[in-house]
Protein backbone atom coordinates (compact mmCIF):
# COMPACT_ATOMS: atom_id res chain seq x y z
CA UNK A 1 0.00 0.00 0.00
CA UNK A 2 1.38 3.42 -0.82
CA UNK A 3 1.22 5.79 2.12
CA UNK A 4 0.43 9.47 2.12
CA UNK A 5 3.40 11.75 2.89
CA UNK A 6 3.89 12.36 6.60
CA UNK A 7 2.58 15.63 7.95
CA UNK A 8 5.31 17.91 9.28
CA UNK A 9 4.54 17.53 13.03
CA UNK A 10 4.54 13.72 12.65
CA UNK A 11 7.78 13.86 10.64
CA UNK A 12 9.40 16.04 13.31
CA UNK A 13 8.11 13.81 16.11
CA UNK A 14 9.61 10.70 14.49
CA UNK A 15 12.82 12.63 13.78
CA UNK A 16 13.03 13.62 17.46
CA UNK A 17 12.98 9.93 18.37
CA UNK A 18 15.36 8.82 15.60
CA UNK A 19 18.50 9.23 17.70
CA UNK A 20 17.18 7.53 20.80
CA UNK A 21 14.27 7.30 23.26
CA UNK A 22 12.93 10.56 24.69
CA UNK A 23 10.22 11.54 27.17
CA UNK A 24 7.29 13.85 26.34
CA UNK A 25 8.90 17.13 27.39
CA UNK A 26 12.14 16.12 25.63
CA UNK A 27 10.24 15.49 22.38
CA UNK A 28 8.42 18.80 22.73
CA UNK A 29 11.61 20.85 23.10
CA UNK A 30 13.45 18.81 20.46
CA UNK A 31 10.72 19.34 17.85
CA UNK A 32 10.93 23.09 18.48
CA UNK A 33 14.72 23.00 18.13
CA UNK A 34 14.71 20.84 14.96
CA UNK A 35 12.15 23.11 13.28
CA UNK A 36 14.07 26.24 14.24
CA UNK A 37 11.25 27.36 16.56
CA UNK A 38 8.65 27.14 13.78
CA UNK A 39 6.71 24.16 15.13
CA UNK A 40 5.70 24.24 18.79
CA UNK A 41 3.80 21.16 19.92
CA UNK A 42 1.62 21.76 22.96
CA UNK A 43 1.14 18.94 25.43
CA UNK A 44 -2.35 18.00 24.21
CA UNK A 45 -1.32 17.97 20.55
CA UNK A 46 1.88 16.06 21.34
CA UNK A 47 0.07 13.29 23.20
CA UNK A 48 -2.68 13.07 20.57
CA UNK A 49 0.07 12.65 17.94
CA UNK A 50 1.91 10.10 20.11
CA UNK A 51 -1.33 8.17 20.55
CA UNK A 52 -1.84 8.08 16.78
CA UNK A 53 1.68 7.02 15.83
CA UNK A 54 1.67 4.43 18.64
CA UNK A 55 -1.61 3.02 17.28
CA UNK A 56 -0.01 2.80 13.84
CA UNK A 57 2.92 0.88 15.33
CA UNK A 58 5.50 3.56 14.55
CA UNK A 59 6.39 4.39 18.16
CA UNK A 60 6.28 2.46 21.42
CA UNK A 61 6.89 3.06 25.11
CA UNK A 62 10.51 2.42 26.11
CA UNK A 63 10.74 2.84 29.90
CA UNK A 64 9.37 4.86 32.79
CA UNK A 65 11.14 6.99 35.38
CA UNK A 66 10.00 9.09 38.30
CA UNK A 67 11.80 12.45 38.45
CA UNK A 68 10.92 14.99 41.19
CA UNK A 69 7.83 12.92 41.98
CA UNK A 70 6.59 13.09 38.39
CA UNK A 71 6.20 10.16 36.01
CA UNK A 72 8.22 10.31 32.83
CA UNK A 73 7.56 7.79 30.10
CA UNK A 74 10.15 7.45 27.37
CA UNK A 75 9.18 6.60 23.81
CA UNK A 76 11.23 5.00 21.08
CA UNK A 77 10.90 4.46 17.34
CA UNK A 78 9.83 0.93 16.31
CA UNK A 79 11.57 -0.77 13.35
CA UNK A 80 8.45 0.05 11.30
CA UNK A 81 8.66 3.70 12.39
CA UNK A 82 12.35 3.77 11.45
CA UNK A 83 11.61 2.31 8.01
CA UNK A 84 8.80 4.79 7.44
CA UNK A 85 10.97 7.74 8.45
CA UNK A 86 13.77 6.51 6.18
CA UNK A 87 11.32 6.16 3.28
CA UNK A 88 10.00 9.66 3.93
CA UNK A 89 13.53 11.09 4.07
CA UNK A 90 14.33 9.39 0.76
CA UNK A 91 11.14 10.75 -0.80
CA UNK A 92 11.90 14.29 0.37
CA UNK A 93 15.53 13.96 -0.74
CA UNK A 94 14.48 12.90 -4.25
CA UNK A 95 11.90 15.66 -4.49
CA UNK A 96 14.46 18.19 -3.30
CA UNK A 97 17.06 16.87 -5.77
CA UNK A 98 14.60 17.16 -8.67
CA UNK A 99 13.58 20.67 -7.58
CA UNK A 100 17.23 21.75 -7.20
CA UNK A 101 18.15 20.33 -10.61
CA UNK A 102 15.27 22.08 -12.34
CA UNK A 103 16.00 25.37 -10.60
CA UNK A 104 19.61 25.10 -11.80
CA UNK A 105 18.34 24.53 -15.37
CA UNK A 106 16.02 27.49 -15.00
CA UNK A 107 18.77 29.77 -13.81
CA UNK A 108 20.92 28.62 -16.70
CA UNK A 109 18.04 29.33 -19.16
CA UNK A 110 17.40 32.77 -17.66
CA UNK A 111 21.14 33.45 -17.65
CA UNK A 112 21.32 32.47 -21.34
CA UNK A 113 18.65 35.00 -22.25
CA UNK A 114 20.00 38.12 -23.99
Amino acid at each position, binding site marked *: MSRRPLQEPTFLLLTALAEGPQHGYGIMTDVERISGGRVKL*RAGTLYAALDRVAAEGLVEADREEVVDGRLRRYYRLTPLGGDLLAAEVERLRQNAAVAAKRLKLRHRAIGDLP
Partner: protein
Amino acid sequence: MTTADGLEGGYRRLLRWYPPSYRCRHEEEILGVLMAAAQPGQRRPSARESLDLLSSALKIRIRMTLRGADSQPWAAALALVAVLLPLLMLLLKLTEFLDRGAQYGFGSPADIVIGAYGEPGAYARSFQLNPHSVALTGNVTDLLTAGPLPALILAALACLGWRRTAAVCAAFVALAYLGISLTSGYTLLAGPRGDVTLYAYGLEALVLLAASDAARGWRALRWRPSALLAAATVAAGVGMNGGFWPLFHAAPTDPASALRRAQNLDRLASLPHGFIDRLFGIGAGGWGGWLLYQGTLVAVIAVALATMLVSSPVSRRALSLLAVPFALGAVIYLCSLISPPLPGPVGNTLTAVPLLLILLAAMALSLGYRPHAGPDNPARPAAPGST
Protein backbone atom coordinates in the same frame (compact mmCIF):
# COMPACT_ATOMS: atom_id res chain seq x y z
CA MET B 1 -2.70 26.92 48.12
CA THR B 2 0.52 27.65 46.20
CA THR B 3 0.67 28.88 42.61
CA ALA B 4 1.89 25.47 41.45
CA ASP B 5 -1.00 23.73 43.24
CA GLY B 6 -3.50 26.07 41.60
CA LEU B 7 -1.96 25.51 38.18
CA GLU B 8 -1.83 21.74 38.66
CA GLY B 9 -5.47 21.76 39.78
CA GLY B 10 -6.40 23.70 36.65
CA TYR B 11 -4.59 21.22 34.41
CA ARG B 12 -6.19 18.27 36.23
CA ARG B 13 -9.64 19.76 35.69
CA LEU B 14 -8.92 20.01 31.97
CA LEU B 15 -7.51 16.48 31.84
CA ARG B 16 -10.83 15.17 33.18
CA TRP B 17 -12.20 15.63 29.66
CA TYR B 18 -10.02 12.75 28.43
CA PRO B 19 -11.50 9.22 28.41
CA PRO B 20 -10.98 7.46 31.79
CA SER B 21 -8.86 4.64 30.37
CA TYR B 22 -6.57 7.15 28.63
CA ARG B 23 -6.29 9.27 31.78
CA CYS B 24 -5.43 6.24 33.82
CA ARG B 25 -2.38 5.62 31.65
CA HIS B 26 -1.29 9.13 30.67
CA GLU B 27 -2.63 11.72 33.15
CA GLU B 28 0.45 11.93 35.41
CA GLU B 29 2.75 11.90 32.40
CA ILE B 30 0.93 14.72 30.55
CA LEU B 31 0.69 16.68 33.80
CA GLY B 32 4.48 16.39 34.16
CA VAL B 33 4.96 17.81 30.65
CA LEU B 34 2.43 20.60 31.24
CA MET B 35 4.10 21.61 34.52
CA ALA B 36 7.56 21.46 32.95
CA ALA B 37 6.42 23.63 30.03
CA ALA B 38 4.57 26.15 32.23
CA GLN B 39 5.85 29.72 32.43
CA PRO B 40 7.49 30.76 35.71
CA GLY B 41 4.82 32.19 38.02
CA GLN B 42 1.96 30.92 35.84
CA ARG B 43 -1.15 30.64 38.00
CA ARG B 44 -3.65 28.93 35.74
CA PRO B 45 -3.77 27.21 32.34
CA SER B 46 -3.69 29.70 29.48
CA ALA B 47 -6.56 29.92 27.01
CA ARG B 48 -4.40 28.29 24.31
CA GLU B 49 -3.41 25.43 26.59
CA SER B 50 -7.04 24.90 27.61
CA LEU B 51 -8.17 24.88 23.99
CA ASP B 52 -5.34 22.51 23.03
CA LEU B 53 -6.17 20.08 25.83
CA LEU B 54 -9.92 20.19 25.18
CA SER B 55 -9.57 19.68 21.42
CA SER B 56 -7.05 16.88 21.97
CA ALA B 57 -9.37 15.23 24.50
CA LEU B 58 -12.14 15.33 21.91
CA LYS B 59 -9.79 13.92 19.28
CA ILE B 60 -8.72 11.07 21.57
CA ARG B 61 -12.34 10.33 22.47
CA ILE B 62 -13.41 10.14 18.82
CA ARG B 63 -10.37 8.07 17.94
CA MET B 64 -10.93 5.65 20.82
CA THR B 65 -14.57 5.26 19.86
CA LEU B 66 -13.65 4.53 16.25
CA ARG B 67 -10.76 2.34 17.30
CA GLY B 68 -13.17 0.60 19.63
CA ALA B 69 -14.57 -0.97 16.47
CA ASP B 70 -11.27 -2.83 16.27
CA SER B 71 -11.25 -3.92 19.87
CA GLN B 72 -12.56 -7.33 20.81
CA PRO B 73 -15.97 -6.77 22.47
CA TRP B 74 -17.09 -4.03 20.06
CA ALA B 75 -15.95 -5.96 16.99
CA ALA B 76 -17.88 -9.04 18.15
CA ALA B 77 -20.93 -6.95 19.12
CA LEU B 78 -21.00 -5.13 15.77
CA ALA B 79 -20.65 -8.38 13.82
CA LEU B 80 -23.43 -9.92 15.94
CA VAL B 81 -25.77 -6.95 15.44
CA ALA B 82 -25.04 -6.83 11.69
CA VAL B 83 -26.52 -10.32 11.29
CA LEU B 84 -29.02 -10.26 14.13
CA LEU B 85 -30.75 -6.95 13.35
CA PRO B 86 -32.17 -7.97 9.93
CA LEU B 87 -33.08 -11.41 11.32
CA LEU B 88 -34.97 -9.79 14.20
CA MET B 89 -36.68 -7.37 11.79
CA LEU B 90 -37.73 -10.34 9.67
CA LEU B 91 -38.98 -12.15 12.73
CA LEU B 92 -40.92 -9.07 13.83
CA LYS B 93 -42.55 -8.77 10.39
CA LEU B 94 -43.42 -12.48 10.33
CA THR B 95 -44.85 -12.28 13.85
CA GLU B 96 -46.98 -9.32 12.85
CA PHE B 97 -48.08 -11.18 9.76
CA LEU B 98 -49.10 -14.36 11.60
CA ASP B 99 -50.61 -12.45 14.46
CA ARG B 100 -52.73 -10.10 12.39
CA GLY B 101 -53.47 -12.75 9.79
CA ALA B 102 -54.78 -15.16 12.41
CA GLN B 103 -57.21 -12.51 13.61
CA TYR B 104 -58.27 -10.76 10.43
CA GLY B 105 -57.32 -13.12 7.59
CA PHE B 106 -54.17 -13.20 5.50
CA GLY B 107 -55.34 -11.47 2.31
CA SER B 108 -53.92 -11.95 -1.16
CA PRO B 109 -50.25 -12.82 -1.86
CA ALA B 110 -49.74 -9.17 -2.89
CA ASP B 111 -51.07 -8.05 0.50
CA ILE B 112 -48.61 -10.35 2.20
CA VAL B 113 -45.70 -8.94 0.20
CA ILE B 114 -46.59 -5.34 0.95
CA GLY B 115 -47.24 -6.19 4.58
CA ALA B 116 -50.88 -5.10 4.65
CA TYR B 117 -51.34 -6.83 7.99
CA GLY B 118 -54.84 -6.51 9.29
CA GLU B 119 -55.95 -4.91 6.05
CA PRO B 120 -56.29 -7.85 3.67
CA GLY B 121 -57.21 -6.77 0.18
CA ALA B 122 -55.55 -3.39 0.70
CA TYR B 123 -53.34 -3.84 -2.32
CA ALA B 124 -56.14 -4.78 -4.69
CA ARG B 125 -58.55 -2.27 -3.16
CA SER B 126 -56.13 0.62 -3.41
CA PHE B 127 -55.78 0.06 -7.12
CA GLN B 128 -59.57 -0.07 -7.57
CA LEU B 129 -60.04 3.13 -5.61
CA ASN B 130 -57.16 5.03 -7.04
CA PRO B 131 -55.15 3.39 -9.77
CA HIS B 132 -52.69 6.25 -9.87
CA SER B 133 -49.80 7.59 -7.88
CA VAL B 134 -51.14 7.76 -4.34
CA ALA B 135 -52.08 4.10 -4.14
CA LEU B 136 -48.89 3.06 -5.86
CA THR B 137 -46.56 5.09 -3.65
CA GLY B 138 -48.52 3.95 -0.61
CA ASN B 139 -47.98 0.34 -1.59
CA VAL B 140 -44.30 0.93 -2.31
CA THR B 141 -43.70 2.56 1.07
CA ASP B 142 -45.59 -0.29 2.75
CA LEU B 143 -43.48 -2.74 0.82
CA LEU B 144 -40.31 -1.01 1.99
CA THR B 145 -41.09 -0.83 5.69
CA ALA B 146 -44.12 -2.90 6.67
CA GLY B 147 -43.53 -5.84 4.34
CA PRO B 148 -41.16 -8.73 5.05
CA LEU B 149 -39.31 -8.52 1.72
CA PRO B 150 -36.54 -5.97 2.55
CA ALA B 151 -35.88 -7.70 5.88
CA LEU B 152 -35.71 -11.06 4.09
CA ILE B 153 -33.24 -9.79 1.47
CA LEU B 154 -31.12 -8.03 4.10
CA ALA B 155 -31.10 -11.04 6.38
CA ALA B 156 -29.96 -13.27 3.49
CA LEU B 157 -27.17 -10.87 2.45
CA ALA B 158 -25.99 -10.37 6.04
CA CYS B 159 -25.99 -14.13 6.70
CA LEU B 160 -23.92 -14.67 3.55
CA GLY B 161 -21.47 -12.06 4.81
CA TRP B 162 -21.85 -9.77 1.77
CA ARG B 163 -21.42 -6.70 3.92
CA ARG B 164 -21.04 -3.96 1.30
CA THR B 165 -24.00 -5.20 -0.80
CA ALA B 166 -26.10 -5.53 2.34
CA ALA B 167 -25.09 -2.03 3.50
CA VAL B 168 -26.04 -0.51 0.14
CA CYS B 169 -29.34 -2.41 0.20
CA ALA B 170 -30.15 -1.23 3.75
CA ALA B 171 -29.30 2.38 2.93
CA PHE B 172 -31.35 2.18 -0.26
CA VAL B 173 -34.48 0.93 1.53
CA ALA B 174 -34.25 3.67 4.14
CA LEU B 175 -33.56 6.44 1.63
CA ALA B 176 -36.20 5.23 -0.84
CA TYR B 177 -38.84 5.19 1.90
CA LEU B 178 -37.79 8.63 3.08
CA GLY B 179 -37.71 10.04 -0.45
CA ILE B 180 -41.10 8.65 -1.49
CA SER B 181 -42.71 9.72 1.77
CA LEU B 182 -41.41 13.27 1.60
CA THR B 183 -42.19 13.78 -2.08
CA SER B 184 -45.68 12.26 -1.77
CA GLY B 185 -46.69 14.42 1.18
CA TYR B 186 -46.91 11.64 3.79
CA THR B 187 -46.52 12.60 7.42
CA LEU B 188 -43.67 10.56 8.86
CA LEU B 189 -44.35 11.62 12.42
CA ALA B 190 -47.66 9.78 12.35
CA GLY B 191 -46.08 6.38 11.73
CA PRO B 192 -43.64 5.59 14.55
CA ARG B 193 -43.68 1.88 13.77
CA GLY B 194 -42.50 2.60 10.22
CA ASP B 195 -39.93 5.01 11.59
CA VAL B 196 -38.43 2.35 13.86
CA THR B 197 -38.03 0.14 10.79
CA LEU B 198 -36.48 3.06 8.94
CA TYR B 199 -33.92 3.69 11.71
CA ALA B 200 -33.25 -0.03 11.99
CA TYR B 201 -32.31 -0.22 8.29
CA GLY B 202 -30.19 2.94 8.55
CA LEU B 203 -28.40 1.53 11.59
CA GLU B 204 -27.89 -1.75 9.77
CA ALA B 205 -26.02 0.07 6.98
CA LEU B 206 -23.81 1.81 9.55
CA VAL B 207 -23.13 -1.35 11.54
CA LEU B 208 -22.31 -3.37 8.43
CA LEU B 209 -19.71 -0.80 7.37
CA ALA B 210 -18.26 -0.50 10.88
CA ALA B 211 -18.01 -4.25 11.51
CA SER B 212 -15.15 -5.77 9.58
CA ASP B 213 -16.11 -9.11 11.14
CA ALA B 214 -19.52 -8.90 9.45
CA ALA B 215 -17.92 -10.66 6.48
CA ARG B 216 -18.15 -13.81 8.62
CA GLY B 217 -21.92 -13.71 8.11
CA TRP B 218 -24.01 -16.10 10.15
CA ARG B 219 -20.88 -17.48 11.82
CA ALA B 220 -20.72 -14.24 13.83
CA LEU B 221 -24.01 -15.16 15.56
CA ARG B 222 -23.83 -15.99 19.23
CA TRP B 223 -26.62 -18.37 19.88
CA ARG B 224 -27.64 -17.60 23.45
CA PRO B 225 -28.21 -13.84 23.09
CA SER B 226 -29.66 -14.40 19.61
CA ALA B 227 -32.19 -16.95 20.87
CA LEU B 228 -33.13 -14.70 23.79
CA LEU B 229 -33.55 -11.65 21.60
CA ALA B 230 -35.56 -13.64 19.07
CA ALA B 231 -37.90 -14.81 21.85
CA ALA B 232 -38.27 -11.24 23.09
CA THR B 233 -38.96 -9.99 19.57
CA VAL B 234 -41.72 -12.54 19.06
CA ALA B 235 -43.19 -11.74 22.48
CA ALA B 236 -43.06 -8.01 21.82
CA GLY B 237 -44.48 -8.46 18.30
CA VAL B 238 -47.36 -10.59 19.55
CA GLY B 239 -47.96 -8.34 22.53
CA MET B 240 -47.89 -5.09 20.59
CA ASN B 241 -50.25 -6.44 17.96
CA GLY B 242 -52.81 -7.72 20.42
CA GLY B 243 -52.28 -11.37 19.60
CA PHE B 244 -53.72 -12.57 22.88
CA TRP B 245 -56.47 -10.03 22.95
CA PRO B 246 -59.13 -12.24 21.35
CA LEU B 247 -58.44 -14.92 23.97
CA PHE B 248 -59.51 -12.59 26.74
CA HIS B 249 -62.38 -11.18 24.77
CA ALA B 250 -63.88 -14.51 23.71
CA ALA B 251 -67.47 -14.68 24.90
CA PRO B 252 -67.41 -16.66 28.18
CA THR B 253 -69.95 -19.45 28.37
CA ASP B 254 -70.18 -19.61 32.16
CA PRO B 255 -72.29 -16.64 33.46
CA ALA B 256 -70.40 -16.48 36.78
CA SER B 257 -66.99 -16.23 35.12
CA ALA B 258 -68.40 -13.73 32.62
CA LEU B 259 -69.50 -11.53 35.50
CA ARG B 260 -66.14 -11.86 37.26
CA ARG B 261 -64.32 -10.97 34.08
CA ALA B 262 -66.56 -7.98 33.44
CA GLN B 263 -65.97 -6.76 37.00
CA ASN B 264 -62.21 -7.15 36.63
CA LEU B 265 -62.20 -5.30 33.33
CA ASP B 266 -64.33 -2.54 34.87
CA ARG B 267 -61.91 -2.19 37.77
CA LEU B 268 -58.93 -2.04 35.41
CA ALA B 269 -60.65 0.41 33.11
CA SER B 270 -61.37 2.75 36.01
CA LEU B 271 -57.63 3.31 36.56
CA PRO B 272 -56.43 6.68 35.28
CA HIS B 273 -55.75 6.90 31.58
CA GLY B 274 -52.82 8.73 30.14
CA PHE B 275 -49.43 8.11 28.77
CA ILE B 276 -49.41 4.29 28.61
CA ASP B 277 -52.57 3.78 26.58
CA ARG B 278 -51.61 6.56 24.19
CA LEU B 279 -48.10 5.17 23.85
CA PHE B 280 -49.41 1.76 22.87
CA GLY B 281 -52.45 3.02 21.01
CA ILE B 282 -54.90 1.18 23.25
CA GLY B 283 -58.50 2.34 23.20
CA ALA B 284 -60.31 3.50 26.35
CA GLY B 285 -61.02 0.64 28.72
CA GLY B 286 -58.59 -1.71 27.02
CA TRP B 287 -55.25 -0.66 28.38
CA GLY B 288 -55.59 -2.31 31.76
CA GLY B 289 -56.15 -5.66 30.11
CA TRP B 290 -53.22 -5.09 27.82
CA LEU B 291 -50.98 -4.15 30.68
CA LEU B 292 -52.02 -7.14 32.75
CA TYR B 293 -51.72 -9.88 30.16
CA GLN B 294 -49.51 -8.93 27.26
CA GLY B 295 -47.52 -6.18 28.94
CA THR B 296 -46.61 -8.53 31.77
CA LEU B 297 -45.38 -11.12 29.31
CA VAL B 298 -43.24 -8.59 27.47
CA ALA B 299 -41.95 -7.08 30.72
CA VAL B 300 -40.99 -10.46 32.19
CA ILE B 301 -39.10 -11.40 29.06
CA ALA B 302 -37.45 -7.97 28.90
CA VAL B 303 -36.26 -8.23 32.51
CA ALA B 304 -35.01 -11.79 31.94
CA LEU B 305 -33.18 -10.62 28.84
CA ALA B 306 -31.64 -7.62 30.48
CA THR B 307 -30.35 -9.59 33.45
CA MET B 308 -28.96 -12.36 31.26
CA LEU B 309 -27.43 -10.08 28.65
CA VAL B 310 -25.64 -7.67 30.95
CA SER B 311 -23.43 -10.52 32.08
CA SER B 312 -21.45 -10.45 28.82
CA PRO B 313 -19.69 -7.34 27.48
CA VAL B 314 -20.45 -8.37 23.89
CA SER B 315 -24.15 -8.91 24.54
CA ARG B 316 -24.35 -5.70 26.52
CA ARG B 317 -22.91 -3.74 23.61
CA ALA B 318 -25.12 -5.57 21.10
CA LEU B 319 -28.20 -4.84 23.20
CA SER B 320 -27.37 -1.13 23.43
CA LEU B 321 -26.88 -0.96 19.64
CA LEU B 322 -30.17 -2.77 19.01
CA ALA B 323 -31.95 -0.34 21.35
CA VAL B 324 -31.00 2.65 19.16
CA PRO B 325 -33.79 2.40 16.53
CA PHE B 326 -36.40 1.72 19.20
CA ALA B 327 -35.21 4.62 21.36
CA LEU B 328 -35.29 6.95 18.35
CA GLY B 329 -38.74 5.64 17.39
CA ALA B 330 -39.98 6.26 20.95
CA VAL B 331 -38.68 9.84 20.89
CA ILE B 332 -40.36 10.45 17.54
CA TYR B 333 -43.58 8.97 18.88
CA LEU B 334 -43.47 11.20 21.93
CA CYS B 335 -43.00 14.17 19.60
CA SER B 336 -46.13 13.10 17.71
CA LEU B 337 -48.10 13.39 20.99
CA ILE B 338 -47.27 17.09 21.37
CA SER B 339 -50.44 19.17 21.40
CA PRO B 340 -51.12 21.08 19.20
CA PRO B 341 -49.53 18.72 16.67
CA LEU B 342 -46.36 19.86 14.94
CA PRO B 343 -46.80 21.06 11.34
CA GLY B 344 -46.16 18.32 8.75
CA PRO B 345 -42.82 19.63 7.44
CA VAL B 346 -41.45 20.08 10.99
CA GLY B 347 -42.47 16.53 11.90
CA ASN B 348 -40.94 15.16 8.72
CA THR B 349 -37.68 17.02 9.34
CA LEU B 350 -37.61 15.77 12.92
CA THR B 351 -38.07 12.20 11.73
CA ALA B 352 -35.63 12.47 8.84
CA VAL B 353 -32.73 14.07 10.74
CA PRO B 354 -31.70 11.03 12.86
CA LEU B 355 -31.80 8.79 9.79
CA LEU B 356 -29.77 11.21 7.72
CA LEU B 357 -27.22 11.52 10.54
CA ILE B 358 -26.92 7.72 10.73
CA LEU B 359 -26.48 7.47 6.96
CA LEU B 360 -23.95 10.33 6.95
CA ALA B 361 -21.95 8.50 9.58
CA ALA B 362 -22.13 5.35 7.43
CA MET B 363 -20.92 7.32 4.41
CA ALA B 364 -18.06 8.89 6.37
CA LEU B 365 -17.06 5.45 7.60
CA SER B 366 -17.20 4.07 4.10
CA LEU B 367 -15.15 6.90 2.57
CA GLY B 368 -12.72 7.23 5.46
CA TYR B 369 -11.97 3.54 5.78
CA ARG B 370 -8.29 2.83 5.32
CA PRO B 371 -6.46 -0.31 6.30
CA HIS B 372 -4.04 0.42 9.16
CA ALA B 373 -0.35 0.36 8.44
CA GLY B 374 1.06 -2.60 10.26
CA PRO B 375 3.64 -5.33 10.11
CA ASP B 376 1.78 -6.99 7.23
CA ASN B 377 1.28 -3.71 5.51
CA PRO B 378 4.52 -1.78 5.62
CA ALA B 379 4.81 1.58 3.97
CA ARG B 380 6.61 1.31 0.69
CA PRO B 381 9.44 3.65 -0.21
CA ALA B 382 8.44 6.19 -2.82
CA ALA B 383 9.12 5.26 -6.41
CA PRO B 384 12.32 6.81 -7.72
CA GLY B 385 11.61 10.17 -9.26
CA SER B 386 12.60 11.10 -12.76
CA THR B 387 13.90 14.30 -14.19
